[in-house]
């Protein structure tokens, strides 16, 4: 592996936690990026906000718990976690007990956020 340049990354999570492998793939990419000293933030949009559901239990489905993995994010120096406020409203979610600390953004704020990064990785 060649010397890694530091880039700013926004990982966009758009899929539900257990409907496919994408939530886990995104988290693993986030953790690997942090391990290689990249500067990254996360944005949960659309069905992806369901990954933040408090009291989820992946073990019921025989898979690793996505919420529990999200709770470990602060250990990896992941700067900010953003969420699409409209999607939170649509699913009527109470995020006061979500696994990580999050900031709600409306549509224009999401557009502003997205132009601030070197790369967007969409999962």
């Amino acid at each position: 592996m060649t010397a890694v340049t530091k880039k700013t990354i926004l990982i966009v999570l758009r899929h539900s936690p257990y409907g496919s492998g994408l939530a886990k793939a995104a988290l693993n990419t986030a953790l690997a990026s942090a391990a290689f000293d990249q500067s990254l933030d996360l944005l949960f949009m659309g069905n992806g906000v369901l990954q933040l559901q408090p009291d989820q239990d992946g073990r019921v489905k025989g898979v690793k718990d996505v919420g529990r993995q999200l709770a470990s994010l602060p250990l990896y120096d992941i700067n900010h976690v953003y969420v699409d406020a409209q999607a939170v409203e649509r699913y009527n979610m109470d995020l006061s007990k979500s696994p990580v600390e999050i900031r709600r953004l409306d549509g224009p704020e999401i557009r502003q956020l997205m132009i601030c990064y070197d790369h967007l990785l969409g999962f």
Partner: protein
Amino acid sequence: MIYSLLVLSSPFSGHCSRTAAAFAHCVITRGHTVRRVFFLDAGTLASAANSVSAQDEDTSMKDWAELANQHGVELAICITSALKHGMLDQVEADRNERPFPTIDSLFMMSGLGQLVDAYANSDRLITFGG
């Protein structure tokens, strides 16, 4: 400009894997560089050596082969995803006591660090699938 591609979806469902190959081809035709194509999650199924398609269906394998053989594009598959999907090279087949490798030799077993390396050293990272 230097591009890298991230392929997330299976070549057997939808068109994203083939679109990724077509995109890589266009990028090169226009004089840019593709540093690496990284296959993650179901995207790793693009490496399946023994997939048999219906006679009237094209597979993405010949597109990937052209990119790798004629343009030297590196095709890297995430080892964790690959193993889960049954995609093993000779080393992993031996290590995991499986009778034979299942990936085409065009593809290289790799870790997520190679995805980080790809985007950190590319002007653009384009995601396909997901």
